[in-house]
């Protein structure tokens, strides 16, 4: 079972390596990890996806909390958040197939960001499932290259992940 964790950390050098080394040391596998700054430049937010049972997630959460630069950890409730990831995909595509591929892109809401003689490059932002669907639809043409940024997530509704210090 996949779990999504939102983690607020201090925006300092070495924080990512601390988080990563924690995962490595405990043998937890990271499915996806995305980091960026928040509206407060001193604070970054990590979205971490881990695969495992409840006991594992509880350990991950507690161990993350032990790291000094970690300000807040929240395991997001399934169904109570929306998530998105960015996918760049280069599809092998002869000129006569352009129309078909463009049609898939249009239906899925992906942008065409580069066109070449034998390929089309698409950019797609959406949740993991829709990203997967897009890739499935494009597979028959030949996926030359796929780059995915990892998932970011935010809770539904007006609630926010609070930094208790503020």
């Amino acid at each position, binding site marked *: 079972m996949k779990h999504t964790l939102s983690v607020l950390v201090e925006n300092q050098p070495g924080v990512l390596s601390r988080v990563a080394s924690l995962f490595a040391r405990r043998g937890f596998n990271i499915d996806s990890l995305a980091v960026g700054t928040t509206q407060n430049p001193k604070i970054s937010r990590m979205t971490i996806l881990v695969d495992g049972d409840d006991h594992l997630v509880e350990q991950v959460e507690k161990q993350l909390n*032990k790291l000094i630069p970690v300000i807040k950890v929240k395991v997001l409730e399934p169904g109570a958040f929306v998530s998105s990831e960015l996918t760049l995909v280069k599809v092998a595509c002869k000129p006569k197939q352009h129309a078909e591929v463009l049609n898939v892109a249009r239906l899925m809401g992906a942008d065409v960001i580069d066109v070449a003689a034998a390929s089309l490059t698409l950019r797609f932002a959406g949740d993991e499932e829709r990203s997967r669907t897009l890739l499935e639809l494009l597979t028959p043409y030949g996926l030359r290259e796929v780059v995915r940024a990892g998932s970011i997530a935010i809770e539904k509704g007006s609630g926010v992940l609070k930094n208790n210090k503020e």
Partner: protein
Amino acid sequence: MITGAEIMVRCLESEQVGLVFGYPGAAICPFYDSLSQSKIRHILVRQEQNAAHAASGYARACGKPGVCVATSGPGATNLITGIATAYMDSIPLIAITGQVNQWLLGRDVFQEADITGACESFTKHSYLVKDVSDLPRVFKEAFHIASTGRPGPVLIDIPTDVQTAEIGSFDYPQKAEIAGYRPRTQGHAVQVRRAAEAVRKSKRPLIVCGGGVVSAAAREELISFAQENQIPVVSTMMGLGVMPMDSPLYFGMIGMHGHENANRAIHAADCILLCGARVGDRAVNDPEKITEKSMIIHIDVDPAEIGKNMDVDIPIVGDVRLVLKSLAQQMGAAPETGEWVRRLARDKAEFVPHGTPQNGTGFVEPRSFFRALSAMMRENAILISDVGQNQIWAASSFNVKLGRFLTSGGLGTMGYSLPAAVGAKLAKPDRQVVCICGDGAFQMSMCELATLCESGAEVKIVLMQNSRLGMVWELQNRYYGGRCPATELEGNPDFVALAGAYGIRSALADSNGSAERLAREMLESRGPFLLVCRVDPGAPTL
């Protein structure tokens, strides 16, 4: 103007540090230069690992963070084992390392090592200081982090140019403000009430006392809680000595090398109060069997320990001392434990300690010797054991009354006892300090005999010489078809002569009679002393 190095010293002074252990090198020279102008005493160890062990012995004996210092590169990497040892046993430690000049960082220049990176998984936190004006804040935070919550080592890595940089003035912050660090000390009231009720209702309650009780200085609270409610106590190796061993409520050490009756007790209990114990695999190897039959209450200041190795019914995050206090207030009537305590006492009597003196064999029998030794030592003596058979013999046979038993329980680091004993003695000069080690471990840190002499610490060393790496030999003998490669110590020196070379008094015992006589002489003598006890190479622990 004031330099970074002077600031480092002023920070230590502000933290009331009177003693540091270390070993110099170019990258830490500015600091040493400033330290020489201070009242802080520096103990020069002979290998950096031992600076960390000595600082950790110091910290454990007096409860304040120990400080160790090393230079960049090899100095820093030599500290690692000591830092990891302290981490595993939750010892407050400040490790200060010099680093190459900032503009050279990351270039693999001479004596550069990414020590904060290397220590990532066994420091509680670490700092690489890049700006001299950050030093006071970093030191304040480091001491705060090391000594609060679950104590542990904090590393501060300081490039040479930061040590020589100057700023206008020194201002030590009053408080450490760290957004992501707020250890919870007071137990949750509802949980405490639930726990009190569970204990009150139980028929066979049992306290398991771990090293966390020592860290939290919760000895008195634990003893009085146990006594007032007549709850029996067993201990992990790290919790040894919290409960006076002659107490009628004390039933020994649990675990693989523990007392049979203590292990039985933990399986027979219906309500277990884990106090600052992490339920390591050597202490409890089948937690599921216990949780099936018993209500588990776990008190720990580190929330990540609770439920990690054992399913818990009532978790209480908090300082063991404070939680035990509030638990005591909530108890009301004590549970009816008379029958249970009598049963445990019968069990304990059944498992009379093994190991009887062997006369005329040319050997000292360790268990009975340790019982005799503990009777000779002062009530508040500090006993430090190394790792190996000697540790198991000491842990299971030494009778701690009001004193302390220190050992490397978590990482199991050989070579720990001698430097840790030096640290403990310097922290508590009035207490008797005896260090027990094997001939293998002793050779890992015997260079510290020099430190011992130089520092004037009056440490008494008992060396159990079985001329092999006994504990591993025992394992090989049992589980590897009797093939015992690489565990014979054939090149052993004459340890008595070795001590003599350092000007340390020494003697060799080859029977329990002579061992006891010489031990008495050792304890009555002034200055350090090495007592070599010849032990039967086949003497078992298991």
